[in-house]
């Protein structure tokens, strides 16, 4: 065992309350007290692990620090994926942090220090609900939920997929809740509080499963935290501060019947934190010794107020090691590395210690397969997802596969490097302001300034970046102000105001142009010259005129005592002045009752290019006859036409325009206003009209059920959504309506395929399938409640759901969505090991190797070449070494076909 106290890990001497190692082991976070706020710091792990890295000045030690918490941070926890960091503090807040990919190192404005944040972590959500200090936070297995506990006696379960949604608030503790731990199986969450109790809650219904009080009855005094922990096999729960015969202990609670027969004894003061090693171990097999089967065991670290740390193996009666006087003050938190051999401990005294064990000391860690086997044995299901670690233990059978695996690793490294370079590039462009230069040149002229009701100036700021991505996209749509005069046009598409100008959307599409980079450079050179010249000027005087400077200095920091002159009252913008950026997608919410003819209306039917339709009914004409006028403006060009009857509704796309009249006539015009068809007589009055591309869908009022939503996809497939939550699309080959979405479908809700969504896939929120299912789709909502359904059932549900999605995408002829779901489906089959289905899928994609006339096999589906799809799937299949034969088989065949 090696012990190290990296002195550079400190919060300037202030207490460190929490420490957590990132799942990938490259960094760790600490939380505690900052200067006048709470502080979260992300540190580089390499300098802790290797001395040469510690000495290398080019390797940063601190990666990022965030002092956004208003008060002391009590807990920091990485999500299991490592994408997020959650922190909770005395300011009653939980903040969730995410790394901003495209922003490189930066300094704080106005700070003279050169210390930059190497990584940018920005707060993506602030979770507000607790009315007292947040003491502990914990991510559930698979990051479905985030739990936080507080001195307000409650535990809040947040939906980690949809912050800040609250799933449940667990009430029942009568004292400050100071520790949380999830059952690795996902069935329970346990909490320990100052009310001398430890409660276990079910995740199925969020009710209390058991309340354990006996070991805590004698507990007196208070500890700052009570961080309990659940063993990785799920069999034992170990509490913080408990008492046995007036001695402080860590109570062991068995999952089976919640029995409390054992404890860890020996600490002289209250136990503050218990942390299980994430690995399960087995005895090291020595050469020559008889290979007798030994029982797997767990390893657990216990930290106490007595400033000492003990490490236990569940197979031993005595601790493996006890380290006294490690710190000057109480131990506050412990974190294991994912490989189970390293441990970071932090203390109230503001220091951190790192311990490194060898495998000889702890034993052989079980690999994921063996761990899964244990879970399978005990709980009848496996919990883990196929991981890198799991693969490393399987023997690779053929050189192709080996090559592929190696290539994959290399590709990952290259990828990694490339993202880094991309980031660096991005950074420079941002720093030089090149991408912004054009915007900046004209900002003063372009920015919109209005006067409020009380005559004050009001500037609408120009939005230059979205937060979550950090991407710079000049002049995002929602940032461009719309003057009150034009707002009505956008808010109510069917407004009767036909006079509204239609041209003022132009600046939206051409945000400030891209002009004269040379000019920009000149300007920056000039300005830098100016500053230097000016600086020297100024500083010359500065040295001669010290006295008033001192007097002035105070002015920088003192807040104005009285707000001079100006009134503070904020004019609340009235709703019509609020620039509104809602442009309804051409999906109307209409009941079947037919729309009544309006005098006039305007609507925008397409944004790219902008096309507007204006309809004016009852234009007086000769001899009392009433005519209707349809006017269309498209990129500044206009055309109009006259219709003999009053127009009820109109619709259009970038290619066609359709209008329905009161006399049940449907007229269709080309983009230039040419009439494409003689007027079509419809069987009933028009209810809704939709255009998409070259397709027009007319919905007449003779249907009986209520249509809540209807649209026409780009591919011309009509889709209707009914008020009962079901959506159908029309299958033209079968001439039937096929069900594609059902809100109440329990299959959908239980499907668990989240593991199969790769971060590289752009989520398809734009496709017709996603649009229809959209808000209806609660896929996987219940999925995470692993305990609620047996594993094989859930497996089946997911399969059915994914196959449904595939078939629906096929019917909707949405190739991008088909592609998306096909990949997910394949990944699911690969992780779950469904050999037959996978084989069939591959077989269909490959098709017959030899061309035969009788074969009905189509080489393409939805315009995607099936063999290309297969080529894309093969790497996915290759991820699971169980399928290496399948992989090789199809790899060979594809190659063969390629050679032909």
């Amino acid at each position, binding site marked *: 065992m090696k012990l190290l106290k990296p002195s550079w890990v400190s919060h300037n001497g202030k207490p460190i309350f929490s420490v957590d190692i990132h799942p990938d082991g490259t960094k760790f976070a600490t939380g505690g007290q900052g200067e006048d706020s709470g502080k979260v710091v992300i540190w580089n792990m390499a300098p802790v692990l290797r001395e040469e890295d510690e000495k290398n000045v080019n390797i940063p030690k601190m990666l990022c620090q965030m002092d956004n918490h208003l008060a002391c941070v009590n807990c920091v926890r990485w999500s299991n994926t490592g994408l997020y960091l959650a922190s909770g503090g005395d300011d009653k807040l939980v*903040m969730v942090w995410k790394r901003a990919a495209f922003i490189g190192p930066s300094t704080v404005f106005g700070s003279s220090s050169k210390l930059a944040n190497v990584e940018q972590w920005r707060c993506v959500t602030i979770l507000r609900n607790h009315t007292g200090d947040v003491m502990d936070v914990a991510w559930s297995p698979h990051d479905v939920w985030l739990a936080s506990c507080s001195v307000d006696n409650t535990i809040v379960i947040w939906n980690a997929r949809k912050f800040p949604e609250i799933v449940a608030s667990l009430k029942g503790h009568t004292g400050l809740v100071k520790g949380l731990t999830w059952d690795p199986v996902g069935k329970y969450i346990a909490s320990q509080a100052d009310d001398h109790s430890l409660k276990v809650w079910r995740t199925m219904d969020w009710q209390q499963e058991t309340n354990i009080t006996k070991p805590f009855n004698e507990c007196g005094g208070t500890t700052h935290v009570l961080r309990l922990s659940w063993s990785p096999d799920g069999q034992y729960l170990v509490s913080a501060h408990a008492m046995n015969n007036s001695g402080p202990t860590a109570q062991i609670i068995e999952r089976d019947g919640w029995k409390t027969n054992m404890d860890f004894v020996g600490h002289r003061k209250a136990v503050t934190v218990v942390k299980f090693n994430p690995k399960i171990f087995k005895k090291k097999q020595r050469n020559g010794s008889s290979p007798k089967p030994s029982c797997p065991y767990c390893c657990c670290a216990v930290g106490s107020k007595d400033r000492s740390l003990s490490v236990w193996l569940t197979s031993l009666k005595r601790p493996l090691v006890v380290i006294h006087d490690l710190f000057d003050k109480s131990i506050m938190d412990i974190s294991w590395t994912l490989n189970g051999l390293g441990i970071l401990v932090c203390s109230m005294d503001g220091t951190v210690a790192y311990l490194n064990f060898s495998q000889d000391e702890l034993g052989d860690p079980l690999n994921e397969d063996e761990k899964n086997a244990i879970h399978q044995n005990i709980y009848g299901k496996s919990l883990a997802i196929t991981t890198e670690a799991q693969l490393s233990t399987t023997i690779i059978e053929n050189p192709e596969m080996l090559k592929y695996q190696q290539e994959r690793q290399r590709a990952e490294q290259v990828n990694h490097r490339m993202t880094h370079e991309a980031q660096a590039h991005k950074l420079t462009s941002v720093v030089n302001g090149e991408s912004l230069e054009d915007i900046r040149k004209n900002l003063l002229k372009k920015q919109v300034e209005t006067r409020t009701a009380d005559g004050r100036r009001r*500037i609408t700021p120009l939005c230059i970046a979205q937060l979550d991505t950090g991407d710079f996209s000049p002049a995002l749509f929602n940032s461009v102000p719309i003057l009150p005069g034009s707002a009505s046009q956008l808010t109510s598409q069917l407004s009767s105001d036909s006079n509204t100008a239609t041209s003022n959307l132009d600046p939206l599409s051409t945000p400030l142009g891209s002009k004269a980079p040379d000019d920009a450079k000149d300007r920056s050179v000039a300005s830098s010259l100016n500053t230097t010249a000016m600086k*020297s000027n100024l500083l010359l005087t500065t040295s001669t005129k010290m006295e008033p400077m001192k*007097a002035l200095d105070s002015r*920088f*920091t003192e807040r104005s005592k009285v707000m001079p002159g100006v009134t503070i009252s904020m004019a609340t913008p009235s709703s019509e002045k609020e620039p509104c950026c809602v442009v309804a997608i051409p999906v109307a919410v209409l009941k079947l009752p037919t729309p009544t003819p309006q005098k006039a209306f305007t609507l925008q039917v397409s944004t790219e290019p902008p096309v507007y339709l204006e309809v004016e009914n009852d234009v007086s004409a000769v001899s009392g006859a009433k005519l209707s006028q349809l006017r269309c403006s498209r990129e500044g060009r206009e055309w109009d036409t006259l219709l003999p009857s009053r127009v009820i509704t109109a619709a259009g796309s970038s290619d066609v325009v359709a209008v329905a009249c009161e006399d049940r006539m449907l007229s269709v015009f080309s983009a230039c206003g040419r009439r494409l068809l003689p007027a079509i007589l419809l069987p009933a009055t028009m209810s809704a009209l939709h255009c998409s591309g070259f397709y027009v869908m007319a919905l007449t009022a003779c249907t009986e059920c209520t249509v809540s939503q209807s649209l026409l996809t780009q591919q011309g497939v009509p889709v209707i959504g009914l008020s009962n939550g079901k959506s159908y699309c029309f299958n033209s080959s079968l001439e039937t309506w096929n069900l594609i979405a059902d809100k109440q479908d329990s299959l959908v809700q239980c499907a668990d395929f989240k593991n199969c969504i790769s971060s590289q896939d752009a989520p398809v929120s734009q496709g017709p399938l996603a649009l229809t299912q959209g808000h209806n789709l609660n896929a996987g909502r219940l999925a995470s409640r692993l305990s609620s359904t047996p594993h094989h059932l859930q497996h089946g549900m997911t399969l059915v759901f994914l196959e449904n999605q595939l078939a629906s995408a096929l019917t909707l002829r949405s190739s991008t969505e088909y592609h998306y779901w096909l990949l997910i489906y394949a990944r699911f089959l690969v992780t779950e090991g469904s050999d037959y289905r996978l084989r069939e899928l591959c077989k269909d994609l490959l098709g017959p190797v030899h061309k035969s006339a009788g074969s009905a096999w189509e080489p393409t589906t939805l315009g995607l070449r099936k063999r290309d799809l297969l080529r894309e799937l093969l790497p996915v299949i290759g991820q699971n070494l169980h399928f290496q034969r399948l992989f090789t088989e199809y790899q060979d065949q594809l190659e063969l076909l390629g050679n032909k």
Partner: protein
Amino acid sequence: MAKVQVLNVAVLDNPSPFGNPFQFEITFECMEDLPEDLEWKIIYVGSAESEEYDQTLDSVLVGPVPAGRHMFVFQADAPNTGLIPESDAVGVTVALITCTYNGQEFIRIGYYVNNEYTDPELRENPPVKPDYTQLQRNILASNPRVTRFHINWDGCSDKMEDSENVDPSPNSSSSSSMVPSSCLAGKALPVGLLSGNSMDCL
């Protein structure tokens, strides 16, 4: 935590004749959509001696502010010369940019401003009554002094909490913003001498 972070302030049209409007291009980032507008102010310190001579050059509301990174140019007219003590017209003073949310100031950005005659003749023998048309305004853009204050972002009613926050604020100002003026002068000396010489040559 502060919902609004000022990322950068660029001083435009600098240096410039005294009568030119002030122009600051301000870039800030907002954590979440703000229901209220931000109020920005430019304050010109007429005299180091007393706050009495402070002039609020202008104040603007900035909004609506959705979550994201934003920028705008704050332009305000030059100070009213009638309100500046004649003895303080030439020399170093300070311009402040402040931002308040719900009436609570959360950031204060200060710049040294140097007002000088460009004409060497006038510089040697300044007129008793300052000639503002000949004065040039130089803002030391490279060295802003930024002080941040904690405020209550969630409601305007908690004035109590606000006033509690005021007390520790002078200490709370980030240490980096508090470069002592002596240090400033010390660092500047060689540069200052150099340019001084070159000017003499001219």
